[in-house]
C-alpha cells in the first residue's frame, strides 16, 4: 500500500500566552526589552509515523495530549515548527473538525450545501453533481429551502456530515463528531464510515470514546503530552489509552497497604455514609438475589457504579479470581473499598479489576460479561446519561448474558411529585435521587439493542425495583 501521510520527527510548539496583543502592549514589551511570549508549549514533539492508503487510524489521548493539533496539522491548518509532515498532493481531503462550521443561519439548506462544498474546493459542476446525494443522505429534502436557523442542531449536524461524506474524499479527518446526535444518526454515520473504509479510503479519527474507536479503526496512535506513546492495533491502543486516562485501572498493590482497618473505622467512615445505610444487609441481599437468578462462580461480572465495593466484596469472595470487574467514576470510593472494606470482609481485592472512569463509556473495560450489575447508580444520573450507561453496558454482555438494573420505580414518566421511599427518604422527577418509569428505561434499552423485563418485589432494603436486560440476538 502506498503511503499517504508521513510524519518525520514532527514537532509543534505554541507560545504559551497565546492571545492577540494590541500595539500598545507590543510597544510596552519592546520598551521593557522583552519578547511577547518566551514561554512555549510543546503540543507535538518528535512524532514519527507512516500511514498507508486504506488505513483508519484513531488518534487518542487525554485532553491536551496533542491529538487535535496533529489532526489540524495533517489538515494543513496548523503548521509544524520542526520536522516534516508529508501529505500526498493528489488527495481530496475532507475535514470534519467542527460540525456545521461555515454554515450561515440565514441561508437555506441548499445554499449552505453549495457554500460548504465550495469551501472544500469543489467546482460548480462537482457541487451540482453531489447535491442530490447530499440532500437524500441528510433526509432533509423537504427543508432544503428553509433557512437553517429554523433547523434543530441535530438537523444542522446531519447536513454537515452529509456534505462531508459526499465529498467522497480520499482522506477524511474527523474530530470527535459522535459526541452529539441521536442514536439513529450515529449509527448512520458509523455505517457510512464503514463503507468509506471498505472502499479503501484513509481516515484519521480523533476521539475520546473507546467504543467509537473500537468500532471504526484498526490502528490507534496514542498520544501523551505530544509524544507517541503507542502505535499499533486499535484494541491494544485502547488498552494503552486507558492507562493514560479517562478510564484508568486502579493499581491494587498501591491501594492495599499495611493499615489494618477495624470494623469501627468502617462503620463511621465517609464512604459508607455516602453510599447509604444498611451496608451489610444490602450487600448480602444483592449477592443472594444474583444467586437466586442463576449466578455461578464461573460467571464474569461487571459491577457498574461499584463504589466502595458494597456488593463487590461479596462478589469478590463468591466468584473465581479475576471474574469481578468494578467501575466507578470516583476513584477514592473504589480505593476505600480496596483498602478498607475488602480487608475487613477478609477478601483479597487483587481478585478483581477496577476502573476509574465514567460509566457512559465502557470501551476501556476489558472483556465481555455474563452478568452486569447496576445498583445505586442511575438514581444519581440525568436521563441522557442513564441512556448512555445502559447502551454502553448492553454492548458488553455476552450473548446469553443478563444485566440487572436497580432503580426507583415511578408509575409514569411525568411522576412530578416526590415519592416516599423506605429510609425514609424521597425520590424525585427532576433531581436526585431520581425515579424512572419502566417504559422509559425499557425504551432506552430497546434503542440500544436490548430487551428489558421488569421484576417484581425482590427484597431490596432500599425499596428499589429491578429491571432485567438481555441483549437482542442478532439474526444474521
Amino acid at each position: 500500500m502506498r503511503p499517504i501521510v508521513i510524519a518525520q520527527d514532527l514537532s509543534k510548539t505554541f507560545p504559551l500566552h497565546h492571545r492577540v496583543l494590541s500595539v500598545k502592549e507590543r510597544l510596552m514589551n519592546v520598551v521593557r526589552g522583552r519578547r511577547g511570549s518566551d514561554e512555549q508549549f510543546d503540543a507535538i514533539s518528535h512524532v514519527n509515523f507512516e500511514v498507508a492508503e486504506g488505513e483508519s487510524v484513531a488518534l487518542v489521548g487525554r485532553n491536551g495530549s496533542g491529538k487535535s493539533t496533529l489532526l489540524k496539522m495533517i489538515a494543513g491548518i496548523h503548521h509544524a515548527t520542526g520536522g516534516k509532515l508529508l501529505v500526498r498532493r493528489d488527495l481530496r481531503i475532507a475535514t470534519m473538525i467542527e460540525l456545521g462550521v461555515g454554515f450561515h443561519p440565514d441561508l437555506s439548506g441548499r445554499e449552505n450545501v453549495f457554500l460548504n462544498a465550495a469551501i472544500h474546493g469543489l467546482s460548480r459542476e462537482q457541487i451540482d453533481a453531489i447535491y442530490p446525494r447530499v440532500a437524500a443522505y441528510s433526509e432533509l429534502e423537504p427543508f432544503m429551502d428553509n433557512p437553517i436557523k429554523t433547523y434543530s442542531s441535530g438537523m444542522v449536524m446531519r447536513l454537515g456530515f452529509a456534505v462531508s461524506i459526499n465529498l467522497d474524499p480520499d482522506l477524511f479527518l474527523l474530530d470527535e463528531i459522535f459526541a452529539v446526535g441521536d442514536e439513529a444518526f450515529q449509527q448512520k454515520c458509523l455505517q457510512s464510515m464503514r463503507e468509506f473504509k471498505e472502499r479503501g479510503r484513509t481516515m484519521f479519527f480523533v476521539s475520546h470514546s473507546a467504543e467509537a474507536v473500537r468500532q471504526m479503526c484498526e490502528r490507534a496512535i496514542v498520544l501523551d503530552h505530544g509524544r507517541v506513546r503507542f502505535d499499533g492495533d486499535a484494541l491494544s491502543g485502547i488498552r494503552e489509552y486507558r492507562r493514560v486516562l479517562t478510564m484508568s485501572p486502579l493499581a491494587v498493590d498501591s491501594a492495599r497497604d499495611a493499615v489494618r482497618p477495624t470494623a469501627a473505622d468502617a462503620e463511621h467512615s465517609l464512604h459508607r455514609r455516602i453510599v447509604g445505610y444498611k451496608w451489610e444487609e444490602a450487600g448480602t441481599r444483592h449477592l443472594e438475589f444474583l444467586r437466586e437468578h442463576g449466578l455461578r462462580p464461573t460467571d464474569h461480572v461487571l459491577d457498574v457504579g461499584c463504589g466502595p465495593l458494597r456488593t463487590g466484596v461479596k462478589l469478590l469472595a463468591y466468584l473465581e479470581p479475576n471474574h469481578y470487574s468494578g467501575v466507578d467514576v470516583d476513584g477514592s470510593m473504589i480505593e476505600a473499598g480496596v483498602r478498607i472494606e475488602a480487608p475487613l470482609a477478609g477478601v483479597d481485592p487483587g481478585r478483581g479489576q477496577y476502573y476509574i472512569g465514567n460509566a457512559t463509556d465502557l470501551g476501556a473495560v476489558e472483556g465481555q460479561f455474563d452478568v452486569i450489575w447496576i445498583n445505586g447508580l442511575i438514581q444519581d444520573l440525568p436521563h441522557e446519561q442513564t441512556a448512555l450507561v445502559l447502551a454502553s453496558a448492553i454492548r458488553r454482555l455476552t450473548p446469553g448474558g443478563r444485566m440487572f438494573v436497580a432503580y426507583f420505580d415511578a408509575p409514569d414518566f411525568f411522576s412530578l411529585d416526590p415519592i416516599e421511599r423506605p429510609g425514609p427518604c424521597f425520590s424525585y422527577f427532576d433531581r436526585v435521587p431520581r425515579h424512572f418509569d419502566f417504559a422509559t428505561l425499557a425504551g432506552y434499552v430497546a434503542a440500544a439493542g436490548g430487551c428489558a423485563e421488569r421484576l417484581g418485589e425482590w427484597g431490596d432494603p432500599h425499596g428499589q425495583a429491578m429491571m432485567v436486560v438481555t441483549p437482542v440476538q442478532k439474526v444474521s
Partner: protein
Amino acid sequence: MSPETTADPALFEDRAAAVVPLGLGLAGLLRYRELIRNLVLKDLKLKYRGSALGFLWSLANPLAMLVVYSVAFTYIIDIRRPRFVLFLFVGLLAWTFFASTISMATTTIAEAGGLLKSVRFPRTVMPMATVLFNLAQYLMTFAVLLPVMLFVYGVGPAAPMLAYPMVLLLLVLLTSGLALIVATANVYYRDVKHLVEVGLQVLFWATPVVYDLNDVPARLRPLILWSPMSPFVSALHDIFYRQAWPGPAIWTTAAVWSVVVFLGGLLVFLRFEDRLAEQL
C-alpha cells in the same frame, strides 16, 4: 519501506514548510473561484433578504449623500461649479466602493475564525470576496444612476469613456491590495480596525471627491496625490465630467499605486496566510 525512499517531493507536500509562493497563491484563487462566487452571492442575498425594497436600498445611500453634499456645497459653501451633482456622483461612488471595501475587509479574516480553524482553503478568498461583493454593489448602483445623470445633464457618450474599464481595473487592484494588508494586520493588531476608521476619514478629505484636483494650489497638489485614491477619482472626473482623456501624470500615479499596493498586499498576505488560523 523507508520514508526517505517513498517520499518523492513531486508526490508529497511538506506541510511543515509552508509559505505559499505568489504563483500558487494566484492559482489557489482561481481554483476556489466557486467559493468566491458563493461568498459574494451569499453577502448580496443576505443584504437585502427580507427587505421590501431590496436592491433599491443600495441606491438610497449614494442618493442621500449626493443630496446632502449638493445642498451643503451649492447653497451653504456656495461652490459655483456647473453640473456639480454629476461631478460629485462620479467620485463619491468610487470612493464609497473603496472605503466600504477596506472597512469590511479589515475584519473579514478575524471574524471567520471558526472556519479558518477547521478547513484549509486559500485565505485570500475571504478579502477577495469582500472586494468583489463591494464591486458588484458599486457597479449595479453606477449602472443604474450613471445614465440618469448623463441624461439629466445632457451629456452624450464620449470617446474618453472607453478608458473607464482600465481605471476600474486599476482601482480594483489597488483596493484588493489594501484589503489584503488590513485583513492580515488586523489579525495581529486589533488596533488596525480603529486606525482604518480614522484613516478613511482623513483620506476622504485628502482625496478630490468634493473638490477638483485642478483647483488645488500647485504646491499642495503632490500632497493630495499621496492619497492613493486621488488619481482614480481625478481620472473619473476627467472621463465622465469633463469627457476628456486622463493625462499621463494621472495614469502613471494610478498605475504605480495599484500595481505596487496589489503585489505588496498579496505578498504580505501570502507570507502570513498559513499562520492566520493559529493567531485567531
